[in-house]
């Protein structure tokens, strides 16, 4: 089979501009496919506890449903749990609200135990703990807004009202924290608020509730077992819980936007539908131009089936090269995405790309390949070769919308025009 590789690839060099443009279209399509399917894979994947040293326990119904604070000591008592903190999404708007950043009401000491990745001076931690209305901001966020320690940061919460009915909360910036390394430093664009003022300030009915619990485990290998143990402890109670890895929990936020898988697949489908026509036309034209050459191959002793495979192999080669380049670009792009988008081209993505190559090859390559197969040497040499029935059917299918359009617009079909 290898001896035919040169012959197959030579077909692609015949019209370099056309091949390059088709290749670039395929590259773009497969880059998009790689990225979108990686997102799909991320969202459709089952909870992965592998290497998770931090778990999030939320109400089983939704993370927007708060859990009572009394669950905290019970979670702490689960064997293998090292530390537990609680975290409540604050949902505050700063200034004109155009630059949104997340804020969480937390217990400062517990935050420090469960997020050792955040680094701050000892004095600042102490001040944060002792200041009821204290807040700390990540370095990125503070620099972005020009904040200094001691500034008062007004936040207008779209979730939490104060006991007096106001939504405006003022927080005193007592520290600016950094990430322990470059990767965490990139994430330092959020704000933590002291739970003290938050819990006292909000309406009485909402007090004593934590949003979610952050569970630091002693051994990441035990994460799955610990998650099951926590959920089992509150099973069949009025506060059933759902414990998952931190990454899985974060994805839950985005899942709220809608059926990510469906959206991703629809976009991928639309892209491939366009590519299908583009590549199909290019391949069909490439074969049409080479009909006498294909006839000569048959003269030399190539069988109908061999000629068909040569044409199909050419389509496959083009699709494969475009797919490999596109997936290469997609993989490269993934390396430069921020850690909030932890997408990777895993086996699922490569399988989808591989299947797409095969389907695309068959759809764009088979019609011209069948034309090549049924080519009668004598007719082809005399320039009398026609399309395969499949190509004819496809051509009619493509022409049909134009016919329908003319009919809708009240113009007579071409035949009638000619007769008229």
């Amino acid at each position, binding site marked *: 089979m290898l001896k035919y590789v040169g*012959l197959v690839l*030579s077909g692609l060099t015949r019209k370099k501009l056309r091949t390059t443009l088709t290749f670039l279209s395929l590259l773009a399509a497969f880059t998009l496919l790689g990225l979108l399917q990686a997102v799909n894979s991320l969202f459709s994947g089952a909870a992965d506890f592998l290497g998770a040293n931090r778990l999030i326990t939320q109400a089983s119904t939704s993370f927007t449903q708060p859990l009572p604070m009394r669950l905290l000591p019970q979670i702490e008592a689960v064997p293998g749990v090292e530390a537990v903190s609680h975290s409540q999404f604050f949902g505050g708007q700063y200034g004109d609200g155009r630059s949104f950043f997340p804020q969480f009401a937390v217990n400062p000491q517990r935050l420090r135990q469960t997020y050792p990745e955040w680094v701050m001076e000892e004095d600042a931690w102490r001040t944060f703990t002792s200041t009821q209305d204290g807040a700390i901001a990540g370095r990125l966020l503070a620099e972005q807004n020009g904040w200094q320690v001691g500034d008062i940061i007004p936040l207008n919460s779209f979730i939490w009202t104060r006991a007096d009915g106001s939504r405006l909360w003022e927080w005193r910036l007592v520290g600016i924290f950094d990430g322990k390394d470059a990767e965490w430093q990139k994430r330092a664009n959020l704000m933590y608020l002291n739970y003290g003022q938050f819990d006292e300030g909000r309406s009485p009915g909402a007090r004593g509730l934590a949003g979610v619990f952050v569970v630091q485990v002693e051994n990441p290998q035990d994460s799955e077992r610990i998650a099951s143990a926590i959920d089992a402890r509150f099973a069949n109670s009025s506060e059933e819980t759902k414990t998952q890895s931190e990454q899985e929990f974060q994805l839950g936020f985005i899942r709220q936007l809608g059926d990510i898988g469906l959206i991703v697949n629809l976009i991928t489908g639309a892209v491939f539908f366009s590519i299908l026509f583009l590549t199909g036309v290019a391949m069909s034209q490439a074969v049409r131009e080479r009909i006498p050459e294909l006839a*000569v191959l048959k*003269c*030399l*002793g*190539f*069988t*109908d089936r061999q000629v068909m495979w040569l044409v199909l192999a050419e389509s496959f080669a083009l699709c494969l090269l475009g797919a490999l380049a596109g997936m290469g670009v997609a993989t490269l792009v993934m390396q430069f995405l921020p850690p909030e988008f932890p997408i990777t081209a895993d086996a699922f993505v490569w399988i989808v790309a591989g299947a797409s190559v095969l389907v695309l090859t068959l759809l764009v390559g088979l019609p011209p390949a069948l034309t090549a197969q049924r080519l009668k*040497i004598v007719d082809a040499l005399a320039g009398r070769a026609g399309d395969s029935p499949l190509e004819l059917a496809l051509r009619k299918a493509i022409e049909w919308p134009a016919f329908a359009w003319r009919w809708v617009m009240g113009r007579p079909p071409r035949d009638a025009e000619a007769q008229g």
Partner: protein
Amino acid sequence: MGHAPPSLFPLVEIRGLTKAYVRGKQRVEVLHGIDLDIPEGDFVALMGPSGSGKTTLLNLIGGIDSPSSGLLKVGGQRIDDYSADELAAWRAETVGFIFQSYNLMPVLSAQKNVELPLLLTEMSSGERTRRARIALELVGIGDRAGHKPSELSGGQQQRVAIARALVSDPTLLICDEPTGDLDRKTADEVLRLLQRLNSEFGKTIIMVTHDPKAAEYAKRTVHLDKGTLVREAAH
């Protein structure tokens, strides 16, 4: 009709050969019961006016078209009832084709064009290269092996086509107006080359031509008119 010279073992044996095409509802017979023998080592020119059926007859002998009726034997084998795949295998082994417009692959070098028929064999890459090089040397353009057809003159391209026809060492060379696109001088060179392949290498050559001067290079000329053999002349 008995036009062939006496031969105990003709390479090509044709008896009562007809060929008809269906055009719409009409059946048009273009060859009417041809009888012809071509002995091995012969060099035959097929001549006749346009539409006389000479190219159709050539295509049938070359196995790229099938007769409607009659007997067609080449090398003692009846090829008229071969399937498409059997004919393809037979062509690869037995026939070399030379066309008026050369029909080379424009994206392949002369060397790679000549190697094409050898892809159907079990030969190694090295052996294919060696044989193609020998064929190109034989037709006198070994120094142009790396050039693409667009970088060669018409005569050189036809020599590459002849090398391609020769490389698998076929018994029969089928030539359809091989000098039709060439000037007189180049045409004479190509015809002398064919003559040499016939006389020195024993290749049986059947050549369709309109050109009486080209036909003079053949050992004999067979004339067709309206699908019938009308005359035969030895040179």
